[in-house]
C-alpha cells in the first residue's frame, strides 16, 4: 500500500468506482462529498494524495490549492477531471486523472504524482527540540542574529536558518519576541 488517499468527489457512482479500483492499492480515507473545511481537515486526515474534482473548488480555485499545499507540502493534489475546466486551474494541480483513463492506469497515475512532491519525513513527527535547536533558540532569545549564532556555534548561516525553521515548525512560534517567551517559560535562559 502506498499512502493515504483522500477522495473528494460529489458523485456516488464515481466515488464507488474509484474505491473498487483502488481498494488494496492505497489506504483509502473516508471520502468527502465537498471541499468544505478541507484545509482544517488535513491535520486530522493526513492524506498523502488528495484526489479532488476541480469543480468543487471555490472561486478563486488557485487560492485554496495554494492553502492546501502550504498546509501539507508533502501531499500531491490530483485533479479528477471529467469535463472542461479552466486550463489555468488545471495547471495548479500536481497531476490530473482523467475519468476516461483505463482501469489499470489509475493507481499508477496517483503513485507517480507523489514523485512530484517534496519527500515527507518518514519518521513520526517529533516536537521535542534537539540539543542543537535548543542552543540556537537560546541565542535567538538573547537577541543574536543568525550570523552571530553561526559564528558562535561554528556552523553555517544556512544551518542556523534550518534550525530556526525547525524550531518554528515544532513550537509554532515565529517571532523573536514569542521565542523569548517560550525559552523563558521553559527555563532555557541562564
Amino acid at each position: 500500500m502506498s499512502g493515504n488517499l483522500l477522495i473528494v468527489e460529489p458523485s456516488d457512482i464515481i466515488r464507488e468506482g474509484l474505491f473498487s479500483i483502488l481498494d488494496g492499492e492505497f489506504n483509502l480515507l473516508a471520502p468527502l462529498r465537498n471541499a468544505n473545511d478541507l484545509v482544517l481537515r488535513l491535520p486530522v486526515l493526513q492524506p498523502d494524495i488528495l484526489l479532488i474534482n476541480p469543480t468543487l473548488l471555490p472561486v478563486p480555485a488557485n487560492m485554496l490549492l495554494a492553502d492546501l499545499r502550504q498546509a501539507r507540502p508533502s501531499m500531491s493534489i490530483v485533479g479528477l477531471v471529467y469535463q472542461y475546466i479552466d486550463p489555468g486551474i488545471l495547471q495548479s494541480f500536481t497531476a490530473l486523472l482523467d475519468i476516461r483513463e483505463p482501469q489499470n492506469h489509475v493507481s499508477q497515475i496517483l503513485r507517480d504524482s507523489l514523485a512530484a512532491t517534496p519527500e515527507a519525513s518518514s519518521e513520526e513527527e517529533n516536537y521535542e527540540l534537539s540539543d542543537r535547536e535548543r542552543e540556537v533558540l537560546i541565542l535567538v532569545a538573547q537577541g543574536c542574529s543568525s550570523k552571530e549564532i553561526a559564528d558562535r556555534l561554528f556552523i553555517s548561516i544556512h544551518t542556523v536558518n534550518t534550525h530556526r525553521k525547525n524550531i518554528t515548525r515544532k513550537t509554532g512560534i515565529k517571532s523573536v519576541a514569542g521565542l523569548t517567551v517560550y525559552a523563558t517559560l521553559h527555563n532555557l535562559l541562564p
Partner: protein
Amino acid sequence: MKTGFFTPRTKMADMIAANHTLILVVPRFGIPLGFGEKSVQELCAQYGQDVGFFLLVCNLYTFSDYPVSLHENVDLSGLIPYLEASHRYYLNERLPHIVRHLTSIGDRAGQQYAAVLHKFIDDYRKEVTDHFDYEEREVFPCIQQLQKGKGSAAQIAATFLDSHSDLVESLSDLPQILYKYLPGNPMVEELSELVFSILQLSSDLEKHALLEEKVLMPYVTQLSAQASGQSVQSAGMVDERRSR
C-alpha cells in the same frame, strides 16, 4: 455589471452583516452607528466622506481578491485621517485592554509567568508606539506635503512596511503562548476572552498593513510622480511588486 463587491448603493447594514468586522471600520470615518436602512452613498454624503475611498477600504478589508486601483474618481485625501484614527483605536483602546488582561493573567499565573508576559507586552507596546510615531511624524507629513505638490518621497523608507508585518507576527504568536504554556484552569474565561481580543487585533492590523501596502505606497509613488511632473504609470508597478 455586478462584481460581487460592495457598491455605493449597498445598504450599510447589509455590508456589516456580510462582514461584521467592518463595524470597527465605519466609525473611523466619522460615520456613527444607528444608520437604519441608509445606503453607503447616502451616509458618505451625509458625513462628508468620499464614497470611493470608503468602499475601497471596506472592499479591501472584506474580499481577498479585491483588485485595488487608484483611479481618479477615488479621492484619497481621507487616507491619512483614516490611518490615524486606526492608530488611535489600536493604541488607546485595544492595547490597554490587552495589557490589562495580560497583566492580570500574569499576576495570577505566578511570578515566573508575570515577569515574562510583562516584558513581552512592554516590548510590544514600545514597538507599536515607535512604529506609529514614525509614520505620524515622518511619513504622513511628507505625504501631506506631496498632496500640496511640495517635497519629495525620498524620506519615506520602503522598509517601513516590513516593520509593519513584524508587528503582526509577534502579536499572532501570543495566543498560542497563552493557551499552550500557561496554567490556564483558574482563569479559563479571562484567558479565552483575551485570546479572542488578540486574534481580532491581529487581523485588524493585518488589514491595516494591507491598506498601507496596496493603497498608501502606490499613492505615494503617484504623488511623487505628479510632483516631479512625470507620468504616473509607475504607481501600478509598485503595487505589483509588493503583491504576493
